[in-house]
């Protein structure tokens, strides 16, 4: 007997009986036990309450017999109290718990990417055809020491900081092994290697069998220190100290014990089945000086051969914080906007803490320029990059490169059902259930990710060519190629762009 609940089904799964061939693929593939088969009657039915609209069944159904509809809001419509608000209150009234969610902020905050437009050449200078002319999007990560020490070219110059090339200004964001399956993780690593860019291990360490991808790995050191040891630091090309995450600024992380399988336990160096708790702060970083110490500890540990990145979430004072990080010795600053993804975060934090990445990029870039130290760090932006135009806009605002996390997972099949925290992911991505993880063939995943990078990169080249630019560095911080649409004075100033229609 089911317990009485005020929660109602969000979705209806409609099966077209005329089409259904009863192959039971939906039953076998649903991660949330929505599809049921009654063997006695040889009939199929659905438990709508279980449906999260992950679309797995829709995709797998060979007969195209399934459709998922959002149920009409069962509550009286109210412009202030949204159906979601009510639903959440009902849920909490029943459980008394914190509302959890997965993936990025889905609230309807205004998006600046959607109110920025790009420039193109007409007559006075030619646009450049990327199919005919070289179009360079290679980007280097790391501290840029200037002026160039000419006389020291002969011997290895120890003052020269390590720099790392990426063949496209797009990297895969930190998503930990544990949050996602080994298969998904491997797909990211393979695609990064094949394309010549970087993937980020996230805070869960790097499984030994993926050390072969070390040259394309940014290895993270987060507050939980999971999987951090000498080999791990040395096998990666870049080390990233993770301070914050766009989806949950100011709080730590929690990977439930059910997800700590034998392999994950080995990689993370924690007992199997125990919860992996990342503290909110690093307990050895309570100030910028502490950060500097950690940065140089890591540099010492890796013979100054690897750039050190510091990842923070975009918060109100992000520009000043970034400046401090640059001065603390970081070679790369990664900033994650409030649309950044997560495997699990409290809903309130995800949806209400942090600032949009566009503003954070603009503020940090300008602040570092004002201080004359922009060239000493690489600025990597993350958090909700949906398409190549977003990337181009971010770079024009002042980023050197971007991380894509959500977009990469979508390329792997994610449908943003936001149930990562349940570990039931039907797509084999955010789960450790071996029955589901095998759904993601890393070969195919890597191919899809490679294709995504290829497509976006080509689009970036097209957009660059249109602007008459044949190298990405000429776009960096080149806000003249951006114009705002429907932005107010303050916003325009913060972004450092003119309004569309203004010539200069």
């Amino acid at each position, binding site marked *: 007997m089911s317990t009485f609940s005020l929660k109602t089904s969000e979705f209806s799964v409609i099966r077209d009986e005329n089409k259904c061939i009863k192959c039971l693929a939906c039953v076998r593939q649903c991660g949330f036990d929505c599809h049921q088969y009654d063997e006695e009657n040889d009939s199929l039915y659905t438990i709508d309450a279980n449906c999260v609209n992950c679309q797995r069944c829709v995709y797998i159904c060979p007969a195209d017999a399934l459709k998922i509809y959002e149920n009409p809001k069962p509550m009286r419509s109210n412009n202030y109290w949204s159906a979601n608000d009510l639903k959440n209150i009902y849920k909490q009234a029943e459980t008394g718990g914190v509302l959890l969610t997965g993936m990025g902020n889905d609230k309807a905050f205004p998006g600046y990417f959607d109110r920025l437009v790009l420039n193109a050449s007409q007559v006075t200078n030619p646009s450049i055809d990327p199919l005919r002319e*070289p179009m360079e999007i290679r980007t280097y990560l790391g501290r840029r020491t*200037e*002026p160039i020490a000419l006389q020291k*070219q002969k011997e290895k110059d120890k003052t020269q900081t390590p720099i790392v090339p990426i063949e496209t200004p797009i990297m895969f964001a930190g998503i930990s092994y544990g949050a996602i399956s080994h298969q998904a993780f491997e797909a990211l690593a393979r695609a990064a290697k094949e394309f010549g860019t970087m993937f980020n291990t996230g805070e869960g360490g790097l499984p030994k069998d993926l050390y072969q991808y070390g040259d394309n790995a940014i290895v993270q050191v987060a507050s939980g220190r999971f999987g951090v040891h000498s080999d791990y630091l040395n096998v990666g090309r870049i080390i990233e100290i993770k301070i914050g995450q766009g989806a949950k600024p100011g709080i730590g992380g929690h990977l439930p014990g059910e997800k700590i399988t034998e392999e994950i336990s080995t990689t993370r160096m924690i007992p199997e089945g125990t919860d992996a708790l990342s503290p909110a702060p690093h307990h050895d970083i309570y100030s910028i000086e502490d950060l500097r110490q950690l940065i140089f500890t890591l540099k010492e540990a890796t013979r100054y051969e690897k750039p050190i990145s510091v990842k923070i979430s975009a918060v109100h004072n992000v520009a000043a914080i970034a400046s401090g990080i640059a001065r603390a010795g970081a070679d790369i600053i990664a900033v994650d906007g409030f649309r950044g993804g997560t495997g699990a975060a409290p809903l309130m934090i995800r949806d209400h803490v942090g600032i949009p990445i566009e503003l954070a990029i603009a503020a940090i870039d300008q602040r570092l*320029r004002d201080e004359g130290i922009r060239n000493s760090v690489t600025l990597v932006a993350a958090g909700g990059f949906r398409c190549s135009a977003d990337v181009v806009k971010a770079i024009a605002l002042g980023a050197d490169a971007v991380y894509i996390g959500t977009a990469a997972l979508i390329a792997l099949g994610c449908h943003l059902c936001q149930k990562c925290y349940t570990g039931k992911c039907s797509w084999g991505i955010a789960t450790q259930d071996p029955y589901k993880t095998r759904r993601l063939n890393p070969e195919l995943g890597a191919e899809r990710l490679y294709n995504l990078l290829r497509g976006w990169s080509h689009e970036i080249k097209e957009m660059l060519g249109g602007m008459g630019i044949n*190298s990405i*560095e*000429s*776009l960096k911080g*080149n806000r003249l190629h951006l114009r705002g649409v429907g932005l107010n004075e303050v916003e325009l100033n913060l972004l450092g762009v003119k309004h569309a229609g203004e010539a200069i």
Partner: protein
Amino acid sequence: MFREGEYRIPSGCAISGFINKDGHRVDGSAIVKSIALMHERSNGLGGGFAAYGIYPEYKDYYALHLLFEDKESRNQVEELIKDNFYIEVEDRIPSRNVKSIGKAPMLWRYFVTPRLSKIEEAQDTEENFMTELVMRINASVSGAYVISSGKNMGAFKGVGYPEDIGEFYRLDEYKAYSWIAHGRFPTNTPGWWGGAHPFTLLDWSVVHNGEVSSYGANRRFLEMYNYKITLQTDTEVIAYAIDLLVHHHKLPLELAAKVLAAPFWQEIDRLPAQERELCTRLRVVYGSLLLNGPFSIIVGFNGGIMALNDRLKLRPLAAACYKSTLYVASEEAAIREICPDVEKLWYPKGGEPVIGRLEEEAQCRLSA
């Protein structure tokens, strides 16, 4: 209507220049003839010249060429100048009336040396002190503009076809070992005398044909080094970029050229290790100074000129030699016009700088 400085103005143009590497000084008629041949590449909204070695008698003084639109701006500037410099000579820049040229601003020149006390006060080098001052005038005194400020050189520019500008400034009366010239075809300007080419900063002068699509990136990078961008022209940022690289960061001109028109990664990747490392670092560090989009430029400086194309060679540039003279121009004809018997003529590859310098003996003689 906005004018230069208030408005970003892309323009197409004609450029020409030559240097007598033996230091032999010639009057301006040849350069005028050369640039005049490319009349069609200008539209009458700007022409200008820079000449090196023209003031041997005042070679140790900064020759400030200034334009004033009104009396008041001249007073303001002169006050500034007097505050900071000893003035050796001041006079109007000689000119002729030329029908086709509209009303000219007041054009003055001052041969000055900075007051040591002021340099000390600024706690800076003499050159930086000079640069600061020039930028201050350009940025803060409305109606006044420093056309050139180097030693033993001068820029002459205005609104009109270059041949008319040459006539106006009586260039046939100056003698220089190197001349560069510009005929302008701006797409949108009322035509302002200060906005014409060449653009100069101390000894540097730049004439330019093209439109730099990386302008925003270049500009914001230079602003980080305290360059005050006043004109919003490509020529201005090119001059500052060269100043930063060569003057402040001490890069040889050849390497500066590799910054402005960087080799493609695919070329860099093929270089021997040491060179590859250098070129990689150059691009990584100075990526923001890469001049992207179509351009051909001629840079004049004390003792030499450099011509450079964008790396795709989207704008024309020809070079030629005759005896000890090096010619560069947008079009081959502009060279043949003044040197029918060229010994060697070539079209430099995109990104490949053509540099002509005074021979050592001439250098010594001219500076003696």
